[in-house]
């Protein structure tokens, strides 16, 4: 028996959120006196798979079918269910991202297993199986008790510090028999944003609002983000006015993010904006208005003009980076 964890490979390799997932699953497994098995779907580098052992996986199951290089809810669900049956999994963990959010509910439904999405804690197994998760767009937490024999979770990224250990996992091929219906979704075109840090998994985010006055001023935001290695985001009116692309819009109607650091520049802090970002660990607000509501939700604040403060902050970050080397 084991804990099964779905990890996504990006062109054959893994990113930090996968290490966090494997570490989480192996800790849950340890607490249950079990082991963790990672499941990898689609083409993947064998060494990369074995290296998941350094984060606690004893075994990696690999379904190498190249059709799995594209997301199909039905095919992924079939593969996860097959792996979970093979391993006798009692807990199934997936990332709380597009893939996990698409397939975890289907797996739960198929196995009649209780589901908790966006977990931010280890399950408390003293009184049932209770997981803490975000609700109300990060404005509160709920403790969900899963009452079924099998439990399905998605883990919110950046919930735990990742520590690399020793060891290699054994890699085993798993064959799953798919049919045409499993791949009914046909991909016509893929557009990936490359070169920048994807917003959803960024640990550091620099975000701009209407206080920046216009798209021509976004250089200060981009420069700061580049220095920090941060992703960029924006408020909704900024995306609506086409100053920035829509995928950068965070808030109730945009993306929900939970970085370690969110720097909000020229954003008033409307409740709908906060709904997307108030799960951030630390919030820095730069605003010329001392009464801006965002200061109430902030850890650190600077009152001043965005176009003056941001370049100065950028210089300070550069000095900090230089001193670190």
């Amino acid at each position, binding site marked *: 028996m084991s804990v099964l964890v779905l990890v996504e490979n990006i062109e054959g390799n893994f990113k930090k959120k996968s290490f966090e997932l494997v570490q989480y699953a192996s800790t849950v497994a340890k607490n249950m006196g079990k082991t963790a098995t990672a499941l990898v779907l689609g083409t993947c580098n064998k060494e990369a798979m074995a290296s998941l052992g350094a984060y606690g996986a004893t075994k990696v199951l690999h379904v190498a079918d190249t059709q799995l290089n594209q997301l199909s809810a039905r095919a992924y669900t079939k593969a996860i269910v097959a792996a979970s049956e093979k391993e006798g999994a009692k807990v199934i963990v997936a990332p709380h991202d597009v893939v996990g959010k698409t397939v975890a509910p289907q797996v739960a439904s198929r196995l009649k297993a209780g589901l908790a999405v966006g977990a931010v804690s280890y399950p408390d197994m003293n009184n049932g199986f209770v997981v803490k998760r975000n609700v109300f767009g990060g404005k509160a937490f709920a403790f969900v008790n899963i009452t079924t024999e099998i439990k399905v979770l998605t883990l919110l990224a950046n919930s735990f510090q990742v520590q690399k250990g020793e060891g290699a996992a054994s890699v085993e091929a798993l064959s799953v028999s798919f049919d045409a219906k499993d791949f009914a*979704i046909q991909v016509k075109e893929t557009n990936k944003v490359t070169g920048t840090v994807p917003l959803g998994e960024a640990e550091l985010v620099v975000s701009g609002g209407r206080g920046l006055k216009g798209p021509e001023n976004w250089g200060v935001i981009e420069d700061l983000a580049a220095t920090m290695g941060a992703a960029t985001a924006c408020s909704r009116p900024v995306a609506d006015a086409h100053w920035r692309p829509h995928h950068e819009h965070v808030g109730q109607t945009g993306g929900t993010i939970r970085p370690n650091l969110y720097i909000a520049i020229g954003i008033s802090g409307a409740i709908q904006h906060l709904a997307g970002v108030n799960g951030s660990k630390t919030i820095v607000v730069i605003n010329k208005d001392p009464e801006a509501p965002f200061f109430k939700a902030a850890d650190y604040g600077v009152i001043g003009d965005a176009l003056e403060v941001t370049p100065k902050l950028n210089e300070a970050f550069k000095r900090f980076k230089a001193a670190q080397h």
Partner: protein
Amino acid sequence: MKILVCISPVPDTTTKIAFSDNNTQFSTQGVTMVINPYDEWYALVRALELKESGAATAVNLVTVGRADAEAIIRKALALGGDEAIRIDTDSNDPYVISAQIAAYAQSENYDLILTGKETTDYNNGAVGAMLADQIDANYIGFASKLDVASGTALVTREIEGGEEVVNCPLPLVLSCQKGMAEARIPNMRGIMAARTKPLKVVPAADIAELSKIVAYEMPPAKTGVKMFTIDQMDELVATLHNEAKVI
């Protein structure tokens, strides 16, 4: 082509979140309910556009909820839609909601079922995916564009780090997000028409919860913001490193 739109009532987005009964219940006192924005702005409006363009023949609405959800259903009908179905039960467990909708939709042969990407209260984002599994339909999450021609849907969906244009045969369950359509405001004619549109109440199927919320917690209150002047940027960066430990 018949479309079903899943409509969930949620607290208005400006609601101050509070809990009662020793933090085990969401306190609904003084809370105004609205249609879940993703259901209203994206799923419902896109369904109506497909009907207006002749691609769809019927747009029905379904809500799993008690009688107090009817004001929300009427509001959705005022935007458009032919008839509404209310399944008379209530739960926070997405499995129960999906299975209730599946029990109703199973025999109705909808070609397309649209949900929001998630509800703004419990943020499960799970009902659509579960429903698709239960009625053996295809599922695509996080769709931002939808067109239908000769039994095939053309969908733009979000993927990790970008987006993808895909083709998918019907029947299909789709979770909708921004990009799908522009929000509409109900007009007087719509509001009047909604009063007489059919709102069927169907009894709930016998479905047990697989999970249950046992308690709530508010995040720790911010201890107050620490201010820096424009000349203290090095201090701010040092604080982010030494105190907040985020860089």
